[in-house]
């Protein structure tokens, strides 16, 4: 899933020592922008993703919505999440509950996928050396050849993205088409998007485009709460959204407003783990020194203790 020639590695899961070639070259951070306000839910991105990544087509699962399946799968990395919301008079959104009154009903679509966090929970949680790498351009990529299938990344991820394959015993997710990006191409989903609601560029550019669009929505379309989703709690992501109501991302198929990585992973992995490991191994050294200082407890009676004449220093 990677082309090491073109991708500078920034960090590696559970790897001792530094990262080869880090900072040797200037590298811009890439970013995928999805404007939920112009998505028509055609799902061309879903197909393009499966096509480019050569993912076998899998059975879809109908759950009474227009969604292809309830959540992303190990071989289905892009999923348009479908939701019904109510547009209020002040331009904010709320959950659509009425069964009789369709006033303000809106369909919204959000492309769910790996967010390529700047501070990736999966990478923090992963105990296998080199199973997850983060490139300097922001892409977080799984290296299946190093994956041990423990699935700790699943619990590290605030977006429920890494998915386990029962057959290969490895975890898979969106690569942000690191193979294409590494060769100067846009990700496959971007190429397929017919409305231009998906855009790809540097993080800075995409942020500007997104903010401009949000402003337009606020000023011209009456979506007073429109804004950009780029959560600070994971130090920003490399997939950002323009939302009609940035205060309620959860309406967009459960997009978290403040994605959290369990603190335990950080503290445990970088502090307790090495410290306690050394302490436990000190137990081995401890018993050795007990033997050479206090000595063994022998069955009694022992032979009488020999009087040792006072030792003369040479």
């Amino acid at each position, binding site marked *: 899933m990677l082309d090491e020639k073109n991708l500078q590695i920034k960090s590696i899961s559970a790897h001792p020592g530094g990262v080869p070639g880090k900072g040797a070259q200037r590298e811009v951070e890439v970013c995928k922008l999805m404007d939920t306000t112009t998505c028509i839910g055609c799902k061309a991105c879903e197909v393009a993703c499966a096509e480019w990544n050569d993912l076998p087509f899998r059975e879809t699962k109908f759950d009474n919505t227009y969604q292809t399946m309830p959540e992303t799968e190990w071989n289905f990395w892009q999923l348009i999440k479908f939701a019904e919301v109510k547009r209020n008079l002040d331009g904010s959104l709320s959950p659509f509950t009425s069964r009789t009154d369709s006033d303000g009903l809106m369909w919204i679509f959000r492309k769910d996928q790996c967010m390529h966090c700047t501070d990736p929970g999966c990478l923090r949680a992963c105990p296998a050396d080199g199973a997850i790498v983060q490139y300097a351009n922001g892409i977080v990529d799984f290296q299946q050849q190093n994956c041990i299938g423990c699935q700790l990344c699943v619990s590290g991820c605030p977006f429920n993205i890494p998915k386990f394959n029962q057959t290969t015993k490895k975890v898979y997710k969106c690569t942000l088409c690191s193979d294409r990006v590494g060769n100067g191409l846009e990700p496959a989903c971007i190429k397929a998007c017919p409305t231009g609601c998906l855009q790809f560029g540097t993080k800075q550019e995409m942020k500007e485009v997104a903010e401009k669009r949000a402003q337009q929505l606020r000023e011209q379309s009456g979506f007073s709460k429109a804004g950009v989703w780029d959560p600070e709690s994971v130090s920003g992501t490399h997939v950002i959204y323009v939302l009609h109501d940035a205060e309620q991302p959860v309406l967009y198929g459960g997009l978290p407003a403040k994605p959290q990585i369990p603190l335990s992973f950080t503290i445990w992995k970088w502090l*307790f783990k090495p410290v306690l490991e050394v302490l436990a191994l000190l137990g081995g050294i401890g018993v050795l020194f007990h033997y050479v200082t206090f*000595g063994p407890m022998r069955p*009694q009676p022992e032979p009488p203790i020999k009087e040792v004449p006072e030792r003369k220093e040479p």
Partner: protein
Amino acid sequence: MGTAAERFNERPRAAFDRIGRTIVYEGELQRHRVYTRVLHWIVAIFFFLALLSGFGIYAPWAFHWLTPVFGGGPMARLLHPWFGLGFALFFAFQFLNWLLPMRWTQADRRWLRNIRKYVTNEDKVESEEVGFFNAGQKVQFWEIGVGCIVFLITGVIMWFPGTFGRIAVAISYIIHDISALIMLLGIFVHIYLSTFGEPQTFQSMTRGTVSEPWAWTHHPGWYREVTGRDPRQALEEERRRMAQSERGPGN
């Protein structure tokens, strides 16, 4: 509960005694029956399989060289829970087998208060209150018992992460590791004391017997129970006999 456990233990103990043998020579006492010894070593094998496969998952940067023994990282990860289950299952039998002699008493509290003297070897023989097991062994036994339950609960949560949610996994991960580290510390002490730390002890888990001096030194209460003799008196007699033979015949 103790009597129900004993009733359960009767049959395997008798069955294993028919399969294997415990030869007790003159001057020796039977310490562990065949069933106990077989259980102990099965538990030990599963413990080390789980421990070593766990090391590679716990800290691959330090123990990645261990995983090829189990067929690589993914295989080690795949096998680890099964090794753990084996460990917990067979320890459960040992738990029932030893439930009665492992019962905590007031004497054990006194023993723990005097642990410094035990560690520094100030007392050449154990207190006469010490029966089949001393308080240190009991602490280890109960630690492993509690540890097994902790391993099972947290291990199952990590085994099926989708079922229990990510926060449960994140917490389990820590508790599982702490429990493993406590048990690892315990096992260092256990192996040391049963080999170099207290000579002749190892034989009790291999041939199943110990010498009488070993018994009155380490478990005087138990010695009194099985021989009906006073452990201190027996020690003194032995000491006198030794002194006499030292002087040699005719003196």
